[in-house]
């Protein structure tokens, strides 16, 4: 990336460390969101009952889905927030260009995604441990209970990619919305329309399925990385011409 000067990288690095301390609240909001998800997951586990002649089998399902779902939503919100005027202006109180500001945001997003992925998987383990100690052990079905270390690592890796993807999408959407006030209403409306169209026409959202139905970790990685690059490049181009209205 030769159009980025050496000094810009340096400034971005300083901004990144500045943002780590300045936006530490993001981490706390992540933890609280995960805690809420944990409470919901524990209290509102899914139950299915089967009754066959004289036998009634009730299965209480637990999963880390809500934890990960909450983390995804958090990631989207945080990434979109970074593009808002207040956050951009904070950068320009000190040394900054649009590019260094974006680069440091991307580094921050990568860090947030990493922390989000590790903690959401670990919180899933915490849920298992809580269930273990609060349930009669005889009732726990062992099959998916224990997460093997490779499974845990795969989960963290995949979760990181998903979070980066959602962040990049949020960042791009945020950058688009910042272009004009009308877009604040228009963009969510268009997105909502697209989602309902896909759901009614295909019963699924194809551009979500493009990622979720990919069974190969390698292909998934490539798909996510290319999408993330496109999203960030778009956001960069959009914001690079923007004036700082401080």
């Amino acid at each position, binding site marked *: 990336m030769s159009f980025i*000067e050496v*000094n*810009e990288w340096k*400034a971005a690095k*300083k901004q990144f*460390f*500045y943002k780590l*301390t*300045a*936006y*530490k*609240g993001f981490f706390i909001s992540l933890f609280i969101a995960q805690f809420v998800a944990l409470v919901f997951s524990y209290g509102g586990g899914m139950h299915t009952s089967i009754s066959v002649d004289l036998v009634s089998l009730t299965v209480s399902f637990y999963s880390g889905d809500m934890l990960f779902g909450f983390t995804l939503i958090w990631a989207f919100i945080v990434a979109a927030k970074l593009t808002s005027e*207040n956050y951009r*202006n*904070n950068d*320009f*109180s*000190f*040394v*900054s*260009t*649009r*590019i*260094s500001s974006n680069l440091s945001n991307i580094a921050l997003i990568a860090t947030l995604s990493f922390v989000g992925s590790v903690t959401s998987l670990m919180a899933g383990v915490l849920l298992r441990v809580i269930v273990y100690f609060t349930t009669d052990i005889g009732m726990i079905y062992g099959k998916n209970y224990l997460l093997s270390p490779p499974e845990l690592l795969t989960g963290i890796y995949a979760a990181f990619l998903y979070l980066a993807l959602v962040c990049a999408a949020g960042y791009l959407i945020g950058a688009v919305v910042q272009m004009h006030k009308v877009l604040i209403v228009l963009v969510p409306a268009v997105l909502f329309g697209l989602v309902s169209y896909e759901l009614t026409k295909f019963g699924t959202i194809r551009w979500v399925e493009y990622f979720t139905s990919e069974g190969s970790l390698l292909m998934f990685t490539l798909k996510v990385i290319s999408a993330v690059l496109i999203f960030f490049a778009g956001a960069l181009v959009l914001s*690079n*011409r923007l*004036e*700082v*209205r*401080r």
Partner: protein
Amino acid sequence: MNVIECSGLTKVYGSRKAVNDLSFTIAENKITGLIGRNGAGKTTLLKIIAGYYRKSAGKITVFSKNPFNNIQVAEKLIFVDDRMSFPPALALSEILSSAAAFYPHWNKRIADGLLNYFQLEPKEKHQYLSKGMASTFNMIIGLASRCPLTIYDEPTTGMDAAVRKDFYRALLKDYIEQPRTIILSSHLLNEIEDLLEDVLLLRGGSKELQLPIAELKHYAVGLSGREEAFAEFINDVDILHQKQMGNVKYIVVRNNFSESLQKRIGMSGVEMTPVATDDVCVYLTAGNKGGIDDVFHRSE
């Protein structure tokens, strides 16, 4: 060496020209006062210099580069105004230590000393400061950063008189210790005139004049006396301002009288008085020679 060079600079908002065909230069290590009324284009100009706004036409270089979105310019300047924003999670002391990372010439001694002097609580959050306190804090950042180009846009907003005085004194002392290019925008010249070396006066987005402060003090002269007494002297001079008080008339004119003429004026019973630089600026940027009085005279 010139830090800022600008020619034909224009910034258009819709159909309004906030900065109109502006040409000037600012030399290194000088303190320049950017004076003008509200809406004269001071802030717009400063934000173009700082690289925040894009110019619409003309040419501008800061440290020989186009400042818009340029890291090499951004590194060398700091822009201080009352809208500087900081993340709400940071305490004042944390903002200062963060700023230190960005500015290689950061002077911690001055920053901490001033914070203490102005009784700003290090653990306080920036958004809970009063307007004057926030301005004081921003000014501390401007001083301590010791940037080669330091821009203050209306830095004293909300400060009380004592703090303003302290600020000007701190600015001057720090400047002597470490000379650098400083631009100070204000609509009040009288408070800062002792500080300034140059004045750049804007009117309606254009340059009205750019002069060393010493010359500005002699730029205009006030004449007062009966109207017929000085009629002969003012045929070919610019009248900047005039006021009628009973049968005594007071006019302000460009001071380009020859010495002999000055003598003749003195003998004709017309009183000649210097005009404060502040007033000169007001007269130069007024829309109307008679000032506000005209409005009331007409309505009578």
